[in-house]
């Protein structure tokens, strides 16, 4: 199977549909820095090949695409591959996504299908079937490797055993050995039965048989116990060895963990500050919306002041008017007073109105005592006087009434202007300076946040560096787990003690076993020496013996077969190791069978001593050599080849080795796709080194100008640079 091309649309950081990779038959390198999209590329492929799940998952959708969708709008997500496998084929996994609300989406139309050419025609085929047929999960285990720690699939004994089982013919022997085992047991059973019915030896047979049955039970138990103990001891030893070898690494590791913890706490602290204020709420709750209000406030105050002033002026004018009107009345009154009777006010000594009425009625002047009969001059004079007096009083009343009405008149019925003026005053002083201070408050806060964001970016870079360092330490430490590196020396003491105890118990068990086995031998000898009367017994004994020997021979042949397979695998692996190691390192790979029927890979230096703790790059080269050897076998066995994918998350090679290494791989007749950080220094690709390569090269990169707190600004671009 050879991959021709891969297309990715809207899968995580691969936004849009121009994400296209083409692959040559040899090596294709994909270069990318941290976060550029290397791992995502890998995961896109894993998603495509995963036949166990066909559900659409919204977490796989490009955030950038999601953010650009309008409500009601729909787009698709897919990963597609064209490849050659007995003819040209294509497979694609896809689904649709629709934006249903400001922050809600729905997924639909999950599809997994492909095409294959049948002669000239193109036929549609179910994706799951196609992949199961062409690139099943067993092969993928030895074809796709994410991260260098994934290569330690080889440290997993079980998977190597599966590999060996599949590719050697050992399983053919399985059937035969099983049969001969069964025959031997049946023959034995028949023999025993015959012996028990032979009068001469039946009693002894039965007794021996009983003992042997019991003993074999004990022997079985011994073996199990011994195996358990050995496993336990092996675990302790292995842990202790690893720890001893990497004590320094462990310290370094713990140190990095501490620093990572501190930096992460700092980052979280900064994030809390950055997110503390919701600007939209602040517009209202903290009156930020009033930042430009100053001019309007001034306008308001000026208007209020002007209104107050105008009102005062009008009131003053009005008062003046009123005063003038009053004064006018006074004058009129005076003039009026003069005109009424042509004389001045009645002198005080004159009688009042009542008296005058009396006098008129009595026809007598009570002042001078003269009689004033009706019609007389004095009488007429008094009447006239009274009339004048009455008119005068009337005029006075009228005049007073007018004065009163002038007083009671007011210009302004309401006092809203005063209300406004009070408001204007209360919005002055400290209130007013607060308003003018708001824009500064906003700028200060935004400035603070900008500083914190810069700080946070620095801290995040530091965190990433620490994570890289941690990864490097782990790789150098080899197959030591993180938890092991974190263990304290108290744990270690405990392990020593337990190992001791287990060793002691193991010795005891082994002695027991030895005794039991020799006892068993004795019993077998005794059984054998029994002399039967019946000739049938003699025959069955012989039959049994033959089958026993044949069984052993089959067993030995099976083991031999395995041994030869491993030798061949080892030989090929070493051929590749030679090619890949080029100048510096020379050593050999050995495939060693372990007690529980599985295989381990070990590296030996050229002088024959084992390299127990190979460096990261040695390990990589070693595993890759084995992988190429296995790939040879799949080619021969299945008459079909498979591409090898590596996602080398951290570069573990020294700078000088890179181009040599890759050029060798390019020359090997296998399709390889390697995703790596190599050839990138400080974000830039090293042109001169790329030029030394013979293979094709892609560069994937996050687009500039992204905001790392906002996933929707992140996208990966692809650039073929060679």
């Amino acid at each position, binding site marked *: 199977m050879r991959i021709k091309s891969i297309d990715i649309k809207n899968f995580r950081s691969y936004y849009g549909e121009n994400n296209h990779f083409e692959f040559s038959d040899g090596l294709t390198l994909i270069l990318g820095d941290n976060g550029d999209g290397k791992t995502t590329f890998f995961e896109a492929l894993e998603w495509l090949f995963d036949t166990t799940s066909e559900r659409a998952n919204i977490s796989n959708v490009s955030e950038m695409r999601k953010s650009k969708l309008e409500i009601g709008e729909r787009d698709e997500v897919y990963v597609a591959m064209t490849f050659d496998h007995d003819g040209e084929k294509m497979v694609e996994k896809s689904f649709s996504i629709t934006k249903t609300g400001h922050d809600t989406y729905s997924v639909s139309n999950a599809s997994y299908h492909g095409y294959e050419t049948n002669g000239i025609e193109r036929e549609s085929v179910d994706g799951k079937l196609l992949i199961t047929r062409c690139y099943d999960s067993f092969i993928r285990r030895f074809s796709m490797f994410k991260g260098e720690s994934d290569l330690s699939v080889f440290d997993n004994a079980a998977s190597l055993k599966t590999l060996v089982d599949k590719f050697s013919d050992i399983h*053919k022997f399985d059937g035969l050995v099983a*049969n001969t085992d069964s025959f031997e047991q049946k023959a034995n059973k028949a023999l025993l039965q015959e012996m028990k019915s032979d009068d001469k030896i039946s009693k002894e047979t039965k007794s021996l048989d009983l003992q042997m049955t019991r003993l074999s039970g004990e022997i079985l138990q011994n073996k199990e116990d011994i195996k358990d103990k050995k496993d336990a001891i092996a675990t302790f030893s292995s842990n202790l060895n690893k720890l001893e070898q990497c004590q320094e690494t462990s310290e370094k590791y713990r140190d990095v963990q501490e620093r990572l913890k501190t930096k992460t706490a700092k980052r979280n602290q900064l994030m809390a500050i950055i997110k503390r204020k919701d600007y939209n709420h602040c517009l209202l709750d903290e009156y930020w919306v009033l930042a430009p209000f100053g001019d309007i406030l001034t306008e308001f105050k000026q208007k209020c002041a002007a209104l107050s002033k105008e009102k005062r002026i009008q009131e003053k004018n009005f008062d003046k008017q009123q005063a003038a009107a009053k004064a006018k009345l006074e004058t009129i009154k005076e003039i009026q007073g003069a005109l009424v009777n042509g004389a001045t006010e009645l002198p005080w000594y004159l009688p009042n109105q009542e008296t005058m009425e009396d006098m008129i009625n009595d026809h007598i002047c009570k002042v001078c005592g003269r009689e004033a009969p009706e019609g007389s001059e004095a009488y007429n004079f008094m009447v006239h006087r009274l009339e004048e007096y009455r008119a005068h009083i009337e005029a006075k009343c009228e005049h007073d009434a007018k004065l009163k009405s002038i007083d009671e008149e007011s210009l302004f019925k309401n006092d809203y202007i005063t209300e406004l003026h009070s408001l204007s005053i209360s919005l002055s002083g400290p209130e007013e300076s607060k308003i003018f201070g708001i824009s500064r408050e906003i700028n200060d806060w935004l400035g603070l946040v900008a500083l914190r964001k810069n700080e946070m970016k620095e801290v995040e870079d530091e965190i990433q560096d620490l994570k890289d360092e941690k990864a490097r330490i782990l790789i150098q430490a080899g197959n030591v787990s993180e938890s092991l590196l974190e263990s304290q020396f108290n744990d270690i003491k405990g392990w020593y003690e337990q190992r001791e105890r287990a060793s002691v118990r193991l010795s005891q068990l082994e002695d027991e076993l030895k005794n039991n086995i020799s006892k068993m031998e004795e019993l077998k000898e005794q059984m054998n020496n029994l002399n039967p009367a019946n000739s049938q017994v003699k025959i069955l004994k012989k039959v049994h013996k033959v*089958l026993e*020997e*044949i069984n052993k*021979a089959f067993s*030995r*042949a099976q083991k*031999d077969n395995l041994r030869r397979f491993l030798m061949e695998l080892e030989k090929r692996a070493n051929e590749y190791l030679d090619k890949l190691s080029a100048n510096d390192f020379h050593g050999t790979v050995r495939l060693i069978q372990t007690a529980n029927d599985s295989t381990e890979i070990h590296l030996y230096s050229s002088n024959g001593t084992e390299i127990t703790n190979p460096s990261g790059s040695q390990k990589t080269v070693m595993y890759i050599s084995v992988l190429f050897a296995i790939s040879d076998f799949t080619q*021969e066995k299945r008459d079909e080849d498979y591409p090898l994918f590596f996602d080398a998350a951290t570069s573990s090679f020294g700078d000088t080795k890179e181009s040599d290494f890759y050029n060798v791989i390019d020359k090997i007749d296998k399709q390889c796709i390697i995703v790596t950080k190599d050839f990138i220094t400080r974000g830039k690709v090293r042109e001169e080194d790329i030029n030394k390569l013979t293979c094709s090269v892609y560069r994937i990169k996050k687009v500039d100008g992204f905001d790392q707190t906002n996933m929707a600004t992140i996208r990966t671009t692809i650039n073929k640079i060679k």
Partner: protein
Amino acid sequence: MASITNNEKILQAVLLDEKLMEFGGYTSEDIGNIYQAMDSDNYVISTVAQIINRTSEGAAERELWKEINDYLKRNV
């Protein structure tokens, strides 16, 4: 490749086992191909060949046992 892919090779692998040769009292020249082996006078050679051949023909274990058992009882 060193691994064995057909019955002939399995036959060779088993019968050329030294201990078996010593037990059975035969040499490598006595073996021949699988059909000759099945017909051999030497019952060890014949039994091994029968087992291999019949198993690859898909014979059930119980059936094969009967055949082998009967054969051996007659010929040892």
